[in-house]
């Protein structure tokens, strides 16, 4: 049985989780593959096929790197669930729900990379097939938002129920999480639009629905680290006393 008295190593886990996600996913998708911001859904079949053929190596390298990065999202979210479970009395329903939804979010972020990798794997296949795999990947990447939404709702319920003298996160972060959950609600509209603010590269479906949860997660990492440091200093003071 593991009894974790010294929680300081978890600070390292939180930092590595956040840093590796940003480094692998951010750099892979934005800089190397050039997949973020997303290419326009208005691009034609020959344009998309040419994109895969002309940037074959960088697309494969960037997407593989980003795929590895998606796995690093989980440690931070699981840590959040552990802190949430401290608030819940009895069966930690919302903590488990949050962790499972985090897994769903991770899978829906990772799987499109495999589909795009399949599109780039054999560049001599027909334009039509490359085009279809490209669309399939983007629709899978941009449409499912329920994972994020349920995560934030569960987190807010626990955070707002925390009546301890020092709650594990500030209440405003929970409310901000609810706003992020409301902001990602529009992503099921993605399959309806090939241009405009609700298309997969649009103002609401990408810039709001993708950027806001990630900024929020960065804030979460900061407060999780603060919480561990605070808890650790209390523990040390207790031992010294």
């Amino acid at each position: 049985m593991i009894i974790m008295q010294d929680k300081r190593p978890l600070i390292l886990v939180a930092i590595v989780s956040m840093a590796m996600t940003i480094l692998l996913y951010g750099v892979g998708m934005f800089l190397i593959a050039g997949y973020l911001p997303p290419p326009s859904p208005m691009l034609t079949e020959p344009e998309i096929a040419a994109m895969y053929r002309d940037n074959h190596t960088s697309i494969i390298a960037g997407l593989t790197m980003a795929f590895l990065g998606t796995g690093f999202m989980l440690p931070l979210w699981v840590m959040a669930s552990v802190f949430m479970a401290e608030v819940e009395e009895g069966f930690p329903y919302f903590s488990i729900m949050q962790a499972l939804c985090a897994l769903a979010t991770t899978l829906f972020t990772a799987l499109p990379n495999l589909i795009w990798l399949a599109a780039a794997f054999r560049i001599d296949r027909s334009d039509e097939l490359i085009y279809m795999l490209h669309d399939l990947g983007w629709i899978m990447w941009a449409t499912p938002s329920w994972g994020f939404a349920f995560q934030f709702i569960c987190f807010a319920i626990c955070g707002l129920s925390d009546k301890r003298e020092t709650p594990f996160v500030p209440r405003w972060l929970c409310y901000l999480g609810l706003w992020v959950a409301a902001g990602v609600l529009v992503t099921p509209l993605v399959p309806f639009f090939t241009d405009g603010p609700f298309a997969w590269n649009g103002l609401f479906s990408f810039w709001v629905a993708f950027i806001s949860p990630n900024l929020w997660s960065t804030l979460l990492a900061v407060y999780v680290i603060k919480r561990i440091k605070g808890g650790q200093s209390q523990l040390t003071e207790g031992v010294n006393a």
Partner: protein
Amino acid sequence: MNLTSQNPCATTDIEATPASLETRSSSLEQTPVSGARIPGELGLWIFLLADMSIFALYFWVFIWNQSLHPEQFLQGQASLNHSLGLLNTVILLSSSYFAAMAVHGARGKNVAGFRRNIQLTIACGAGFLVVKAIEYGEKFDAGLHLASNEFYSYYFVFTGIHMVHVIIGLSLLSYLLFSLTTAEKIRQQMANIEGTVLYWHMVDLLWVVLFSLIYLLQ
């Protein structure tokens, strides 16, 4: 789980009538008063302002597209059922009044008054959804849908997102109705009551702007 907040915003009563001062004792028990008191807590206001900012972006997108396709938007507006839109505006404004009266009842420890006004607010919210469903039904019968044109895309998306807000508000109001049955429970949940009603007022305000923008502004 109890979602009652510790209200950090302490200040003077904005509507400081003798009656209201007397009836606010429950909420004041939680917060020392030293100036004007703003209902709800800071985080809730951040949420409301952030949500309204997103809607402000929706409004901007709508106006921008209206300037790109003026003819299409004029035709689209003319095809909307203004009577049903106006009816929904009246329904939501009435619901906001009942919601405010519910807070008044809660502060006065008037359990029956609180519950009656929450029920009326829920009835109005449900009425709004019924009218909206009738309006959507008319459009679908006429062969108009999300992908018909730019105007109808925005009409369905923005009113649909607003409708989701109404449904969330109704869920919160129902939670208050079914969980707060005694004066003591109402006193303990005063911050949640205020928060829910503030949210409901925001939903109402957003509809008034949406109605003006989508149905009326040319």
